[in-house]
């Protein structure tokens, strides 16, 4: 049982769970915070139309009296997207035929073994 860190998303996981079950990590989609960081770094994660809509929503002024559960319209808009992480890792096995040796779907940027 080894503890790994995914070099693509930074997620930490054990490759074998305490009961012996194999665990197959797959990187999560970009979060709202990560989407904003990608957009700020001018990485093309949204289409021009989507970017224009985000800019329009971000331009909406914050209410003078802000409700306790206020969420910026731009964040609400970004939360609707499930943008795949660039170079995502997916350790789930590719579809198999017959007795072929299993391979993972995507290696991504690999892993760092934290605890062998």
């Amino acid at each position: 049982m080894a503890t790994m860190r995914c070099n693509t998303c930074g997620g930490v996981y054990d490759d074998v769970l305490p009961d012996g079950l194999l665990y197959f990590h797959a990187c999560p989609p970009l979060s709202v915070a990560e989407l904003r960081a990608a957009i700020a770094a001018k990485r093309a994660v949204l289409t021009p139309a989507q970017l224009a809509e985000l800019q329009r929503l971000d331009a909406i002024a914050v209410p003078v009296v802000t409700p306790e559960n206020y969420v910026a319209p731009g964040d609400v808009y970004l939360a609707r997207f499930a943008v795949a992480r660039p170079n995502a890792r997916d350790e789930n096995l590719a579809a198999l035929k017959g007795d072929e040796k299993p391979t993972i779907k995507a290696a991504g940027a690999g892993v760092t073994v934290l605890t062998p």
Partner: protein
Amino acid sequence: MPDTIEQALLGDVDAVKMLLTPSSVFMRVDDNLRVTTFNSAAGVRLEARWRAVLPNGAIIPSGDVHTPNTDRSLKSTIVLTPEGWLLGLEIVVAAGTPRIGQCFVVVEIVRGSSGAVTPLQTLVSGYVSTLQPLGFPGTGLRPSNEGPGVILSVTGTNPAAGAELSQTVPTGARWRLRGISAVLVASAAVASREVTLVIDDGTLVLAQIAVGSAQVASQTVQYTFALGVQRIAPSATLALFGPAPDYLLEAGYRIRTITTALQGTDDWGAPQLSVEEWITG
């Protein structure tokens, strides 16, 4: 071939035996058994035990070992058999402790012993466990998604700060999500975070359940979405609950969170999932 038993009795012993066949399963010299498994449990070893009547009337037992893979992928073993009638067979667990829902076995008669063999007849299929062997005749053909699955507790990936939770149903599995629980530690950044549980098929959203309460700066909240749980107004915002949809999720489906206003320094902990799993080939 004698037409009647009377004729056969006047003839040789083998002719009598051919009329009085002890089993409907006659194995030619180039027929063999193939044991195929799809397994998720660790440390499993199976034994295929069988008995046969040879043309000379001798009854012989035999046993062969099969070690499944542990990643739900297909593993096959050819069990060589002599010419004769197969009286019966059983698949038993020789090592490991697979539970029902973890080790699915199919036993077939195939023609050939290596390479591209020709499957001819399926004898038995079903899950095997330490308490429950498979037998032919007897067990019959059971599909892998029949009956209750195995209950698993799965620790998911602990995401990096600023990232969401996401758990993908593994290849070869079908899940029913019974519950998921995880802690979100909000940083000091002022924002109103609201957590939504999302179920999708890898692309399209199938369900989206918002917990309905906000988490503010510097709060640590345990979120739990589970079957039969109703969303309740929290009296103390240390634990929030929401319902989980009673969906069957195929391989590649995802269970993930969307946290509006998630800050780059907010940190989700590793989720703990309770799932019911079946093997799907």
